[in-house]
């Protein structure tokens, strides 16, 4: 990974920073940092692709896109650490407004960790959705498509669709078995619908995002220290990434997520983020009215295809021939492709989210270490 490779040279820079020339270097570093972030985010934002109907594999809100987004986050994070945290001493952070901004940033980091944990559970649910869709693909890939195959596919799809539509609306905690053992209902696969949550039922991803962005205000011009801008940048990227993940991946309680952060237009790196945010925000508004499966492209396609497939199943007459057969084959092929992307992407995405978690934990610890240099001198023995 590029950021780690750079750390050797960062170390050099840090030692130089102690000298008189330090200030200039810092300005240079911060500028570089902002430029890199701008580049990385711009890559994620392709407005020109907007109009094309086909879904390129890295289309916005796809799994592949999220993997790139998280990559960008990890790079950004590594550079942030090198520019802002490493080699600092407590005095750097103890002056206003950093003495306020840094703890605020750390608080956001903590909230981001919870979101990561919630997202990891969400990815697990996506895997189950994929398995259900895969059942439909497998059974409708049979030749000839028989009533039995259709029935099997429909059952899996009904379970899938009901799981998608109840996700995060009702049933926070799985319903008990009171219903399941008594009814021999063959239309769904039973309790697969439910999403188990890592937190108490009052925890809300949307509220966490709101809390993260509430006090995130753009620095005014002429702030006393050059670290204010990169800190604001890092917080903005953090909140944005978490917001996008919550919007896309099944997650505990997302009502009210639409209200998002206000990014300052004065920074070039904010432009692609604002663009992305608007696009995702629009989709959110559209989607919020009917069910909340999350905006993940694959989920949306899966849901759409699932509905068409159920429709096909309902009007099924043996044998399927001609145009109808081609239609089904096309749907199945598309669903298969979606499943393939999910199978391939979700494991990697899960690992990446875990990596993001690890990195945030470590960076926070390193920041606290710097801050603690001050506290250490003043900790009394608690007798």
């Amino acid at each position, binding site marked *: 990974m590029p950021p780690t490779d750079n750390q050797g040279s960062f170390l050099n820079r840090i030692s130089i920073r102690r000298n008189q020339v330090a200030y200039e270097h810092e300005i240079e570093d911060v500028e570089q940092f902002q430029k890199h972030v701008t580049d990385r985010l711009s890559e994620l934002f392709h407005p020109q692709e907007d109009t094309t109907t086909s879904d390129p594999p890295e289309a916005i809100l796809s799994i592949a896109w999220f993997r790139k987004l998280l990559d960008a986050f990890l790079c950004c994070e590594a550079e942030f650490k090198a520019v802002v945290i490493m080699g600092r001493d407590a005095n750097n952070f103890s002056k206003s407004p950093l003495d306020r901004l840094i703890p605020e940033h750390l*608080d956001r980091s*903590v*909230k981001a*960790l*919870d979101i990561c*944990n919630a997202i*990891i*559970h969400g990815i*697990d649910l996506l895997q*189950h959705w994929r*398995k*259900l869709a*895969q*059942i439909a693909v*497998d059974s409708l890939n*049979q*030749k*000839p498509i*028989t*009533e*039995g*195959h259709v*029935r*099997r596919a429909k059952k*899996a799809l009904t379970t899938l669709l009901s799981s998608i539509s109840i996700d995060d609306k009702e049933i926070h905690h*799985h319903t*008990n*078995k009171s219903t*399941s*053992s008594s009814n*021999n209902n*063959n239309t769904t*696969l*039973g*309790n*697969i619908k*439910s999403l*188990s949550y*890592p*937190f*108490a039922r009052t*925890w809300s991803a949307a509220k*966490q995002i709101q809390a993260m962005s509430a006090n995130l205000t753009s620095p005014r011009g002429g702030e006393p220290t050059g670290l204010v801008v990169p800190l604001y940048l890092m917080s903005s990227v953090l909140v944005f990434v978490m917001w996008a993940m919550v919007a896309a991946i099944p997650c505990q309680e997302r009502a009210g997520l639409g209200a998002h952060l206000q990014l300052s237009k004065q920074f070039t790196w904010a432009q692609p983020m604002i663009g992305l945010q608007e696009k995702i925000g629009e989709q959110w508004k559209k989607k919020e009215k009917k069910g909340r499966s999350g905006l993940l492209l694959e989920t949306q396609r899966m849901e759409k295809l699932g509905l068409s497939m159920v429709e096909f199943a309902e009007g099924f007459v*043996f*044998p399927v021939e001609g145009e109808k057969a081609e239609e089904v084959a096309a749907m199945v092929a598309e669903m298969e492709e979606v499943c393939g992307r999910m199978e391939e992407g979700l494991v990697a995405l899960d*690992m990446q989210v*875990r990596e993001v*978690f*690890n990195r945030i*934990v470590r960076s*926070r*610890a390193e920041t606290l270490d710097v801050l*603690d240099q001050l506290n*250490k*001198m003043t*900790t*009394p*023995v*608690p*007798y």
Partner: protein
Amino acid sequence: MEDTNPPPSDTSNDLNTKVDGEQTPSVVPQDGTPHDKNIDQFISLLRTDDKSDSSSPPEIVESVQIFVDLFDVKVVEYESGSKRWIQLDENESACFLEFVDRNAKLIKSMSRFHYEENYAVVIDRISSVQERALCILEAEFKSILDDYQTSYDRDQDKDEAKKKELKSSASNVHVQEAVEPELPDQSEAEHEKDEFLGYSDEMMLVLKKLANGLITGGHVTECSELYFFVRRNATEQNLKNFRFEKFSIDEAQKMQWEPIEKEVSSWMKMFKYFCSSLLPSERRLAEAVFSGHTAMSDNLFGNLTQIVLSYFLSFAEAVMMTKRSAEKLFKFLDVYEAVRDNVPLVEQLLSDEWLPQLKSATSLICTMLGESIYNIFIELELSVKSDVAKTPVPGGAVHPLTRYTMNYLKYACEYSDTLEQVFKEHKRIDRVESVTDLQSSQEHQPQNHQGGNGSPFQSQIAKIMDLLDVNLEAKSKLYKDPSLSLIFMMNNGRYILQKTKGTGEMRTLMGDPWVRKRSSDLRNYHTNYKRETWTKLLQCLSHEGLSVNGKVMKPVLKERFKSFNSMFDEIHKSQTTWVVSDEQLQSELRVSISAIVIPAYRSFMGRFSQVFTPGRQTEKYIKYQPEDIENCIEELFDGNTAQLSKKR
């Protein structure tokens, strides 16, 4: 049991011999066997035909129609709900699964000619019946799996008393720790009996058959998803029964430490129970239900474990992210040890693909907790170093700093093995991360005593002890009376020595030379104290200079008695307020004071008391009888607070 789970056999011959060998003719429909044979022949015909790539399919044998009609009738019977699998006898269920198996093969081999209309129509028919049959299997599979609660809850009622015990003892860590070693044995035994988490042997038998049927029929995903969700719900139900608290990292940041601290104790219990007992049972269950399908059981168990552990590890993460402070050390150590010790129990049950995520999560937790633990010691070191008090402790008693530090270290040493591990790991990280820190810490190495070149934790403890000494030395200077300084040093030194000797681990860490050195220091304080306080007094009792040419100089004698009395009064008055709370030290001091004062006084009295005229003069100058002196000495170091508080 094994013969109910044959590996999916590919040759129809095998199947036939198995059917013949297993089934009694009275149960199998008489007309079933010949048709089955015909179908099996048909299937192999289609297969062998496969190779020759001929375009015209063989004619569909009549038996297929009869077979599917028969199967249909059976399926209807089950669909009506009149038959439940748990009540079926061995042969009936075997017969049904036979149908499914044969049908699956039939569909598979016929599909090759799906473009032939007559084939397609038959395939539609038989696959429809097959699907209905598999639905029945699914429903039965789920309903039996779901039935865990009845039997399991019965079990849980039995456990209820035990659990309550656990919960209540959670308030006291040390009591709990004493109980702990028995726990795994108990639960191990519990679960030997309850090998399959409340599923009876009959249920297990049926579950295996159903799983096998579903797998044969191609419903692998349905089967594993059903299984997974039932077991996950069961596990989560279990966590709920234990009142497992899910709280987020963010919440933990804002919580008071006490509720978290309490939760740590019950978390430890639960975590241990899950890792050492419940998850191994889940493993056995998955293996038994999906015997012969290792990949499936590995995967199902892995998935379940991942979720369960994520709850437990989230808690550990929430704890590790709380702001570190000295009082959290012991809980941090508890959580560290729990993760270190319990996760490997589960790791050995998991297939390789599940390990990387788990390892990365646990290593993060151990590293972060390790860092906090390490830093707590560094902070303790700094705190001891920089603790400055302006006012001395009244009476030269044990300083709160000594008490705090020693008790803290004493508890810490109960975790000495873990702390050694943490310190070794951390020193390594430290060396990589900051060279400068290491250099500066080497500069501050304590004077080289025995522990100095020992393990990192050992030298850390030694360093703190040295700093405590230096600090106490400085604090002793706050007393204006040098005797009181010495009493203070004695008190604190004694306390440190006793605490160290009283804790096996700490005694071992500090080593013999240290103990010898401390003991000799204490003796020196004692000697110096006697000299400081009592030598001057004893000078009053010196026989020298009292007689000139054998004649006692009465005025000098009067002066001697007077100054003895006033000096003694003064000593008595001040030193009864001094504190020596260690009984042994107190009595040692009194004994050694008496040993020098009483004989001298007695001899002085014996020699000179008759000089005074009995009556007023004697009363005036001989204020104390030797017994009085003895009594007064017995009152020293009592920390006479009544007097003290009156003064204040």
